[in-house]
């Protein structure tokens, strides 16, 4: 088991985390006609909004209860009610996803009771709009936890019990993680449909944050999971959870409506995808289509061609737990060494399975301080400072990626996604290959009295 080292220092330097309510907002954005609402001061919303825009290059619907000093002292239920009613009038959303913030959670109120009172008082005014709650203070968790809470809250609020276990035999629930891209979700839909199954994907950012140009101005999320489809999830034949952090909503679907579930910790490696495809074949009773069998063969070939570049490479990884596990497994599976693994929060059970000596709960300051001598940095765009100062190339993954275009269209799951990852990383290795020099190969190079430069050994370990 991998050791998980908790954070001990007081000053966090260059945070790795994005906040918990941001993760919840992202999940709500994958529902058609939804409007996420932060219960906090306007800055909480503004910062999250700007960051989402920088990543997706899209207008992001996100609103605030605009808590001021007086409301902070006296209580924010009035602001919450006013915000919900204003949103209903102005944007007519199908769903308002409330995310609490550190400000209101520090004050501490019974938000669930407030919300049900608001719903009761305004039953007519709010007809046709679901209001759900995720308690996501910034002082705990990060993107993953926020995503989990929002997805769980939607299942909890919308999926009715199914005591008779009425089942639609071709309907399958798919629960992606926050780190799955638009391209990933589109691909998963294709995979499931290739077996004649009908997926309900919750949330489905492939319809909402995929960068299309609609013919009119739409103030809410457009595209995404339909609210009636969420209500129908209890009648699915199976739930496929695509990350450890969506186990909770999958388990809730089982408890609520008896839908059995399977969790896939990663879909970026050959064996994991095999299991996924086999499950689809079993659920549908159909053979694996020729197209998929061909994609599998292409991945085998990419693994063969690619492994030359990975063997012995030292990788420094920093990501949220499930993404960390996925990428660490990917790199380790091609012979690279996970020399450094940093993550955001320490509670996920998946961390124990990361193929590294230890996982450090920390920030990009810790990452930078320990990554010297590695061949590749793998984290989000904020890793650029470390990359510049250390002179080590950076592969951008996760959120936020604000200084490269197209991160939402990067395919990372399935046979094709795994193949893409191999090519992407191998190309970075090739672009940064250090050619041997007489100095770097001189057998006496490390025997000088003061051997100050550990980087010299690089040229030796670099894959050919």
């Amino acid at each position, binding site marked *: 088991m991998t050791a998980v080292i908790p954070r001990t*220092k*007081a*000053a*966090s*330097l*260059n*945070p790795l*985390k*994005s*906040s*918990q*309510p*941001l993760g919840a907002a992202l999940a709500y954005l994958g529902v058609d006609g939804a409007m996420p*609402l932060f219960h906090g*001061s*306007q*800055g*909480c919303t*503004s*910062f*999250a909004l*700007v*960051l989402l*825009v920088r990543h997706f290059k*899209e*207008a992001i619907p996100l*609103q*605030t*209860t*605009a*808590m*001021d000093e007086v*409301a*902070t002292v006296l209580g924010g239920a009035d*602001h919450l009610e*006013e*915000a*919900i*009613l*204003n*949103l209903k009038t*102005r944007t007519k959303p199908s769903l308002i996803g409330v995310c609490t*913030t*550190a*400000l209101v959670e*520090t*004050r501490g109120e019974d938000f669930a009771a407030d919300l049900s009172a608001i719903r009761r008082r305004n039953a007519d005014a709010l007809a046709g709009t679901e209001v759900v709650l995720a308690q996501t203070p*910034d*002082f*705990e968790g*990060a993107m993953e936890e926020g995503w989990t809470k929002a997805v769980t809250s939607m299942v909890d609020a919308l999926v009715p019990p199914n005591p008779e276990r009425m089942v639609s035999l071709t309907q399958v629930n798919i629960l992606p993680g926050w780190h799955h891209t638009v391209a990933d979700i589109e691909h998963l839909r294709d995979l499931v449909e290739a077996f004649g199954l009908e997926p309900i994907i919750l949330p489905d950012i492939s319809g909402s944050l995929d960068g299309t*140009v*609609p013919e*009119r*101005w739409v*103030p809410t999320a457009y595209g995404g999971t339909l609210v009636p489809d969420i209500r129908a999830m209890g009648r699915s034949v199976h739930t496929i959870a695509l990350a450890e952090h969506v186990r909770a909503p999958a388990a809730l679907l089982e408890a609520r409506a008896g839908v059995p579930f399977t969790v896939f910790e990663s879909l970026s490696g050959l064996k994991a995808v095999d299991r996924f495809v086999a499950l689809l074949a079993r659920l549908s009773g159909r053979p694996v289509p020729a197209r998929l069998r061909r994609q599998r063969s292409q991945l085998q070939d990419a693994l063969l061609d690619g492994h030359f570049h990975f063997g012995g490479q030292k990788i420094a990884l920093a990501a949220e737990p499930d993404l960390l596990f996925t990428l660490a497994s990917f790199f380790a599976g091609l012979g690279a060494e996970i020399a450094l693994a940093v993550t955001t929060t320490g509670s996920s059970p998946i961390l124990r399975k990361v193929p590294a000596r230890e996982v450090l709960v920390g920030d990009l*300051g810790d990452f930078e301080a320990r990554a010297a001598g590695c061949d590749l940095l793998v984290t989000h765009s*904020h890793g650029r*400072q470390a990359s510049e100062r250390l002179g080590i190339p950076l592969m951008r993954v996760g959120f936020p990626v*604000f200084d490269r275009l197209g991160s939402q269209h990067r395919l990372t799951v399935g046979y094709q996604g795994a193949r893409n990852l191999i090519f992407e990383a191998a190309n970075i290795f090739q672009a940064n290959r250090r050619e041997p020099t007489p100095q770097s190969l001189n057998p006496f190079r490390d025997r000088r009295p003061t051997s100050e430069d550990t980087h010299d050994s690089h040229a030796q370990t670099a894959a050919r």
Partner: protein
Amino acid sequence: MLKDKIADMFNEPGCEKNQAKDAKARKKGCSKPLTPGAAAGGCAFDGAKIVLQPVTDAAHLIHAPLACEGNSWDNRGAGSSGSDLWRRSFTTDLTELDIVMGQGERKLYKAVREIAQAFNPPAIFVYSTCVTALIGDDIEAVCKAASAKYGLPVVPVNAPGFVGSKNLGNKLAGEALLDHVIGTHEPDDVGPTDINILGEFNLSGEFWAVKPLFEALGIRIRASIPGDARYLDVAGAHTARVTMMECSTALITLARKMEERWGIPFFEGSFYGISDTSDALRQTARLLVSRGADPSLLNRTEALIAQEEAIAWARMEAYRPRLQGKRVLLNTGGVKSWSVVAALQEIGIEIVGTSVKKSTDEDKERIKQLLKDEHHMFESMAPRDLYAMLAANKADIMLSGGRTQFIALKAKMPWLDINQERHFPYAGYDGMVELVKRIALAIENPVWETVREDAPWDREGNLTESPLLQAGKGVIGSREEADPHFLAHHRKKFAGAGADDMAEC
């Protein structure tokens, strides 16, 4: 007390807009109450950080749970010619346990120590936020103790988000500088032509296009606050002879109080636009001479202005054929710099609309004169209306901040960022030429024709015309017959003010 400070801000006698109000309106303050569910914009903490963080060699420590800093760091394009410490992000990242156990102050103190030991900066700015203000952490006391213990200035910035808007935060940051920084360092090279520039953020490094103009006149920038500033320069800003203040509402109180305390006269100016840049140089020289600098500075300044203006206008003239008659929609919340508008009109651009949300009555009067048609003025426009206006092709380009970017883009309309996220320097003479060039490049980009092209099928996917037939007629790509927007574009139904009206600006 923070409350008194805020009341003080709202009572700013140096603010024209404030002076136009009666006593009762003034007491209510400048910030309108926000509407829950319909609010936009940053908080006071955001505003404070914007003003102070470009002090490049200082560490900026945010005492807060994650989101305040974790969601917002390294996101502004201010340029630094020296240290990169300001781009690193420091936060106490408070956990639930810290809050419940009341360990905020201890953690803050420890964090200051860690930063002092690891980076040895000339100063650390410490920012309070909503949560740490709510739980009653006394950052002033912690800063004082840590400062004494570790022997470096630790500056408390008391602007938690919930006290108000970004603009109020700007002002509270100015107060922090006044209370704890300016006047704490005596430079040993004080001269008769030293000046301060307040409210210059050095976005995209644009101040580097202006600074050499001052230097060519022998004028030294003692402190540019905050863009590309060094802590000690700011601490010695009280020794300057003159202050120029840009971006007027943000730091006006700071400018006025510096005048009161150290007798440094200030003027409001701007480096956006040709005539404003010249005015800024002229006013600086005039004030310096009035305070005892060599009077020959005045003539040298006029000579430099004449020379640089001639070069800039000649370069801009090259764009006239490309931009004559093009229609610009300005959506900035209130243009302060009329010389940008004037310069655009000078080369034949029409202004078909401008927002006046943040403008004073005097500003509005000036807009009326400039635009001839006051219907082109709007308080603020709902995204839906803005989209409709752009989609109906009532402008050739929108200049605005990032917030409305996607309204233009989704309407398939050229857009140019003139706000803090922009990637090009627009200050000074060269900056104005750059702006004109960027407008031309944006409008002329062939991508607009491509993205506006309708697909050769309808909503159901049925082909609208036989491709073979169309090829025979040789009209592929022509939209003129089909698209009313395209026709409207060519009819120029929005003829506005012409270039000749601009002589006096």
